[in-house]
C-alpha cells in the first residue's frame, strides 16, 4: 500500500455519501495523514448525484481527484458507480453496492415503457474493470438487523485497501455514527471487511442473473381518438382536456374538443372514462 491515496465516493442525495466520506477522512486524519476532501452541496442534494473526493498522504494539495487517478471508487448506488468509472485508475478496484435508486426521469418514455436505467450486469462490469468488489450492502446490513448501516458495510469493504489501523477506523466510526448506533455500525463494518473477493462478486453476479424481472410487454397498436362533436359541450365542460395526462386535447374558443397532439396519446382512456356525455372514444386499433 502506497503512503497516499485518492478515494472517490459516489451515490444519490440522501444516501449518506458525505457522512461516509467524513468517516474515511477522519480515519485518515487519525492515522496521521494530511487530508483534503471535496463535495458539492446545494442543488445536488435534491435527489441528484452526490460525489465526494477524498485524498490523503504526507502532503495533499488538490481536494479534487483527477480522472483516471482514483485508487478506488466506492459507489453506494449501481448507476452512480458506472457514471464514476472514468475517475478509476486502470486496474484499480471498484467497490459497488447493488442498491438501485431509479430516478423519476428514467420512467418517462411512455410510448415504449422503457426504463432508462442500466441493468445490474455484474459479470459484464467485472470483464471491463477487472477488480470489482460488488456486494448488496443494504441486504447484508438488513440481515444484521440495521439496514441503515449499509454504508458501514461498504466502508468495511474499503478498509483493507487503505493503510489505516483499525482503531482509526473504529474511532472515526464512533465519532460520526448517530447516537446509540455505533455497535450496529461497527458490526456492519466488520461484516463488510469479512467479505472475501472475488468470491462475493461471483455470488452477487449469480444472484443478479437469477433475479431477471418482469414479464414481456403487451403492447397495443397506437390508439385512435374519435370525437362525437354533437355531444361535446366544449369550454362549458373541459374535463377531458384537464384530465389527459399527455395534454393531447384542447378546446379553442367556442369550439369542440380537438386532438392537437394525437401522437402523444398512450390510450389510457381517461377522457373516455370521464366524459359525462360519451363524446370521446379511444379505439385500440390504429
Amino acid at each position, binding site marked *: 500500500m502506497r503512503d497516499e491515496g485518492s478515494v472517490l465516493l459516489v451515490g444519490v*442525495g440522501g444516501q449518506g455519501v458525505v457522512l461516509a466520506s467524513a468517516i474515511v*477522512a477522519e480515519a485518515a*486524519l487519525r492515522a496521521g495523514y494530511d*487530508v*483534503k*476532501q*471535496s*463535495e*458539492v*452541496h*446545494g*442543488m*445536488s*442534494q*435534491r*435527489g*441528484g*448525484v452526490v460525489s465526494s473526493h477524498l485524498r490523503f498522504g504526507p502532503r495533499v*494539495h*488538490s*481536494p*479534487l481527484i*483527477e*480522472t*483516471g487517478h482514483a485508487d478506488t471508487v466506492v459507489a453506494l448506488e449501481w*448507476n452512480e458507480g*458506472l457514471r464514476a*468509472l*472514468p475517475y*478509476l485508475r*486502470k486496474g484499480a478496484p471498484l467497490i459497488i453496492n447493488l442498491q438501485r435508486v*431509479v*430516478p*423519476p*426521469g*428514467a*420512467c*418517462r418514455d*411512455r410510448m415504449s*415503457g422503457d*426504463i*432508462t436505467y*442500466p441493468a445490474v450486469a455484474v459479470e459484464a462490469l467485472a470483464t*471491463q*474493470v477487472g477488480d470489482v468488489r460488488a456486494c448488496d450492502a443494504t441486504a447484508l446490513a438488513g440481515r444484521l438487523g440495521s439496514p441503515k448501516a449499509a454504508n458501514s458495510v461498504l466502508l468495511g469493504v474499503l478498509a483493507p485497501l487503505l493503510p489505516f489501523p483499525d482503531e482509526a477506523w473504529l474511532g472515526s466510526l464512533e465519532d460520526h455514527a448517530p447516537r446509540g448506533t455505533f455497535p450496529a455500525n461497527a458490526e456492519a463494518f466488520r461484516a463488510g471487511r469479512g467479505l472475501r473477493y472475488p468470491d462475493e462478486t461471483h455470488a452477487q453476479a449469480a444472484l443478479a442473473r437469477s433475479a431477471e424481472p*418482469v*414479464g414481456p*410487454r*403487451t*403492447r*397495443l397498436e397506437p390508439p385512435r381518438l374519435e370525437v362525437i362533436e354533437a355531444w361535446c359541450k366544449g369550454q362549458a365542460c373541459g374535463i377531458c382536456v*384537464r384530465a389527459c*395526462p399527455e395534454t393531447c386535447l384542447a378546446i379553442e374558443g367556442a369550439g369542440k374538443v380537438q386532438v392537437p397532439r394525437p401522437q402523444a396519446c*398512450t*390510450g*389510457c*382512456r*381517461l377522457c373516455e372514462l*370521464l366524459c359525462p356525455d360519451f363524446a370521446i372514444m379511444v379505439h*385500440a386499433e390504429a
Partner: protein
Amino acid sequence: MAHPASTSLHGTGESLSGPATRRLLLSGNEAIARGAREAGVRVAAGYPGTPSTEILEALVRLDPGRQVYVEWATNEKVALDVALGAALGGARALCTMKHVGLNVAADTFMTAAYTGVRAGLVVVSADDPGMHSSQNEQDNRLLARFAAVPLLEPADSQEARDFAALAFDLSERFDVPVVVRTTTRVSHARGVVISGLLQVAPLLGFERNPSKLVMLPGFARARHRAVLERLEVMARAAESSPLNWIEWRDRTVGIVTAGIPYTYVREILPEVSVLKLGWSHPFPVDLAREFAAGVERLLVIEELEPFLEEQLRATGLSAEGKQWFPREGELTPEIVRRGLEQAGVLPESQGTLYATGATASRPPVLCPGCPHVAPYMALRQIGAVVAGDIGCYTLAATEPLAAMDTTVAMGSSIGMAIGLARSGGTSGPVVATIGDSTFLHAGLPALADAAYNGTRVTVLILDNGTTAMTGGQAHPAAGTTIRGDAATTVDLPALCRSLGVGFVRVVDPYDLAETQLALQEAVASPGVSVVITNRPCVEVPVKVRDHPFTVIDERCIACQSCMNLGCPSISWTGGWYEGRRKVQIDTVTCTGCTVCAQTCPTEAMVPLPGWSPRR
C-alpha cells in the same frame, strides 16, 4: 519558501478548541468562521446562498457564549449595511454572501470603499464557477477591483482561516472593506487546519466624521481622491505581503496562479516555479516582474476571467493564459492538465479512461411531498405564463412539471411578470411564483410596484416557512433567528393587503382542487392578486413524515396521471396495463402528502395498511 500566514496572529492565550495547535478537519467555510471568530469579530450578517451559507452557521456553533451578534439579514444589501454600520461603530464585522449576492449589496459596497470602516470589515464573496447551484458564474474579483478594495483569495481551508483573520488587520490598517473571495471548491472542500488563538479586538466606538461618512457630493469627491491614493499605498504593501510569494523551482516555465487552481498546479506540475497570489488586488506589479524575469515562459492558470492575465499584460509582460485554459466553467485537475498539454508544457497523455457506458441521468428534483408540486400542476393547467424565481421551485421548470418560463435573479419574478403583462405580448394570464424567503429578499418592492401601478398580475407566494434551497435557514417570516431564538414573524397576507393588494388568498397546496380554483379566481380578478400556500418544507427544519401511501396494483390502469408530478417516490413497476407501465410507491420515502392519490382516477393509491406513526 515558507507558508507564511498563520504566524502573524498574536493571540491572547485562549483557544476555541483546546490546544492551539490542534489539527482540525474543516471546510473552507468553517475555517473562515473560525478565522473571523479568532480575530475577534463582533457582528456578522449575511444572506444564505450556496456556497457561502455554512460560514454564519459555523460561527454560531463556535460561539455558544454569544459573544458575537450573528444574523440572517433580509438580503445581502441589508447584511452589508448592518456590517458596515457595525464597523463604523468600531466593532469588527463580517458579511457573507454568494457571488450574486454582492450584486444586491453593490450599492453599499461601492460607496463603503469611500467611507472606509474604522473597525475591520470583511466581505466574503463565495463564487460558484461551474454553477453547481447558481444562475451565473460571474467572477467577483472584478467587483473588488471595480470598488478599489483589497482582494484575498485563499486556496484551501488553512488559508481560508488565516486570510479571514488577517483580512481584519488589513481592513483596519488601510481603512477599507476587504473582500475574501472563495470558490465552491474552497468553501466546500475540507482540509486540515491548525487553529489560532482567540484575539480580543478592542471595541473602538463610533466617531462622528460627516465629511468621511456622509456621502454628499462635496464630501464624496474628496473621498474618491482618497480611495485612489489608498490604492497606491495598498499596492506597495501587496508587493511585500506574506500573502504573495514566489516558489522557485525549475525555471523553464513559471506559473502565476491564485486560489484553488494553485492546488491543481502543485499536484500536476510539482517541479515548476510558481507565483502564488493570495492578495491579488491591488496587483503586486514588481513581484510579478521579478517572477517573469526569472522564468523562460510565463503561464497564468486561473478560473473564469483573465483577471491576473490582464494585470500581467498591462504590466507589459507576455503571459499565456486563456488561450490554453477555459474562461468558462470550473477548472479541474484534468482540465488544467489538458491545457498544459496543449501549451506543450506536458506531453500528451497516453492512457485512456474507463468508459461510463449507458447510465441514467439524475438531475436534481423536487423532494417527495414537496408542497411546491401541486401549485405548478395547477399553473400548467390554466395555461399561465409563469415568471419564476430563485429557490427549490426553480426545478419546476424541468420535466415533467415544465411549468416555468423565466428565472433570472432573486425577486425578479414579480417585476418581470409586471413587464410581461404590460408588454401585451403574452397570451394567457401572467403569474409570478416566488418563495417566502425570496419574496422578503427582493420581491416586496416589486409587489408594491404592481399594486401601486395597478398591473394585472397574479403572485403565487410559495410559503414553506424556510429558505429551503440552501438547507433551511430562518428568515423574517420563519419565526426564529439564526440562533433558534423565537422572533417576530411577518404576516404575509396582512403585508400584501397593506400594500394595496385586493385579492389575497391562502391555500393548502396539498389540496389540488383548492389550489387550482384559487389560482383561477386570482387570474380572473382585476389588478394584482396574491395566492399564498401554507405547507412547510418537508425536509427542513423539521422532517414531515405522514402516513405513506401505496398502490393497489390491480386497480392501477397505468394512466400516468401521477407520473406527471415527477415525485421521486413514484416509479414504474415491471407490470403492464394495456401496454403502459403500472406504478408503485416507495413507502419508505413517501411522506403521505396525498397529491398523487388526488390525481388517481381509480383510487388505486391508498394509505399503507398497518402503518403507525411510531415505528
